[in-house]
């Protein structure tokens, strides 16, 4: 999908918010592995995006984020690689296997030199935009709660399918659901009953 098309869809997104018990947030983590969108100030380095926009500490970045992929390519130098409008950034907290080690920053980066991200050109457009994020494995539980509280944009069909597959008990524990500002019954999201009215949804949680 083109950047302009995605931007249009984000502007038309329905808003869905769940009021949940804190422990229920973990049931939503797998939603984050396929990819979602966040509003961002683009035209900055990955390092600045992490620190200034995601609020991560340098220690956390160094110790917990083992795999960083910008538009599908391993990014080694976070202070050079630039996040442009519509970029896809995938983050992994664990990278096993020989191939996993090769994809990390480190001595085996040479093993995948032909697919390594190389920065060329200027910063491009700088200002309000969006970034597609994918959070994998350990980073789902680390970074997921805060991002879900702030709200993420996600393909409505993916969200509807995911919510529809959650067990009945999840919806029984859910305190309330707000769809485009109106309170609705949680049951309407079970077993694929919800048919989204737009391509994209802004999804957030409010643990009580």
């Amino acid at each position, binding site marked *: 999908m083109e950047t302009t098309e995605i931007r249009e869809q984000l502007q038309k997104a329905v808003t869905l918010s769940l009021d949940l018990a804190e422990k229920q947030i973990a049931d939503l*983590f797998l939603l984050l*592995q396929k990819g979602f969108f966040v509003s961002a100030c683009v035209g900055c380095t990955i390092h600045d995006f992490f620190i200034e926009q995601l609020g991560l500490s340098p220690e956390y970045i160094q110790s917990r984020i083992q795999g960083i992929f910008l538009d599908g390519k391993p990014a080694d130098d976070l202070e050079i690689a630039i996040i442009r409008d519509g970029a896809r950034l995938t983050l992994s907290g664990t990278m*096993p*296997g*020989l191939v996993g*080690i090769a994809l990390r920053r*480190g001595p085996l980066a040479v093993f995948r030199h032909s697919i390594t991200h190389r920065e060329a050109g200027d910063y491009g457009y700088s200002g309000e935009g969006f970034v597609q994020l994918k959070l994998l494995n350990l980073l789902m539980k680390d970074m997921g709660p805060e991002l879900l509280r702030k709200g993420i944009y996600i393909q409505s069909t993916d969200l509807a399918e995911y919510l529809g597959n959650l*067990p009945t008990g999840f919806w029984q524990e859910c305190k309330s659901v707000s769809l485009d500002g109106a309170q609705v019954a949680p049951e309407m999201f079970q077993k694929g009953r919800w048919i989204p009215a737009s391509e994209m949804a802004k999804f957030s949680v409010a643990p009580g």
Partner: protein
Amino acid sequence: MDKILRIDMSGAGGPQVNEVPIGEYAGLGGRALTSAIVSKEVPATCHALGSENKLVIAPGLLSGTTAAMSGRISIGCKSPLTGGIKEANSGGQPSQVLARLGYAAIVLEGKPPTDDLYKVFINKDGVQISIDNSLKMLPNYDLIDKMKSEYGDKKIACISIGPAGEMKMCSASIACTDMELRPARHAGRGGVGAVMGAKGVKVIVLDDTGMAMRSPKDPEKFKAANKIFVEGLTSHPVTGEGLPAYGTNVLTNILSEVGGYPTYNFKQGSFDGASKISGETQAETETARGGLATHGCHRGCVIRCSGVYNDKDGHFLTKQPEYETVWAHGGNCGIDDLDTIAMLDFLDDNYGVDTIEMGNAIAVAMEDPRAVQGIGVTYATSPMGADHTAGYAVAQNVLKVGGDVDALKPEGQVEISRNLQIATAAIDSTGMCLFIAFAILDQPETFQAMLDIIGAYSGTEFTADGVTELGKKVLTMERDFNARAGFTKAHDRLPGYFKTEAFPPHNVTFGVTDEELDKVFDW
């Protein structure tokens, strides 16, 4: 482990058992021992399924001790699949049990004159071999159920083949039972199960009742080093957190993201259904169904990267499918349903075939080395064939084997591949699981602890140089065997289309030259 059990299957009056001192092979274990015996005693040009080939089953040097992660077993022979030397490695309980019974190796030799099927039982009192044709064509799970009813289920461990091994199929595996006595761990690569089938042995039942844990020469140093080693493994994000939580299949999402995931018989490197079969989804599914997302394949494992996969009704279906199984039966076949993949994993284990060979027989492909080219160097040159574990034990920046490498220069791939193959061959000989690689890569104190465990066990000082020398020795034996079997540098090549056909989404080709590949074993 000062003796070798040799069983000659070719006697007219039945198999002949000879228990002999370890002799010239003293100090070797695991892969070092299997490769030493095969290289010295098996004619390189023999038929892999004939009487001259030998099947060598060897616990690692540290197996049977209290060293963490030391339950890996090596099974070696001339491979009916590659035509070269092979060591296939497996977890499960047999390595620890066989080591405690005092055997450095079991060697199956010769060829039975009849088509009878044999059962071998080994305990502290000795070895019993009997004909049991009622076992013919039994799948592994049924076979082990029968062994449990005969020998009890408390202390035994089994090494067995399924129908594929009896049929001498080149993809046949050898099953090793896990802690729950399930034949779920497999020496899968190279068709070793076909060689066991050619020897006429269906199952080896091991019982170490009455046998003690093996003792190191320096117990205090051993205990202290093991403690540091375990702390290093449990504190590392991969071995202490990622692998226990998600298993090796955590790689599915990552490889699909970078375009290196086998998909639709390698027509592409990213799979749209990756998130449906990812390690993250798999772990959640296992937990929700009452299975286990964290489970060790043998006692003494602290990483516990395996799991228990139940069906939708909560009944055991198979052990947690590994990354290679998931891509081979999943993405590469266009399947994005975990239950289907899990069922295929069970069927592979039950009939005794390697999941990678089976998945690829359907999809006709293998993990692609065009995106991560350094792995391609290893696939092309390893004496084990294109085995993903052949260059795994990454300790390059700790060992500095062959000097430092400039990570920015592509030429460094050859040197790093060489170092990885050396380190892997050495670790395969200790009985330790290759997944310790992550912790010893990043934490020098964990690497030192591993050296200290080996040193304390043998009562000698074991250094990084010792690791290097051991690895080189193993590789030299293996390369020598393959050269005698007719392999030349022309076999150290990837298929020609890897150099010419671009692989999407990055559209890269394999760029390491033949001249560079020929330098891998220059040391």
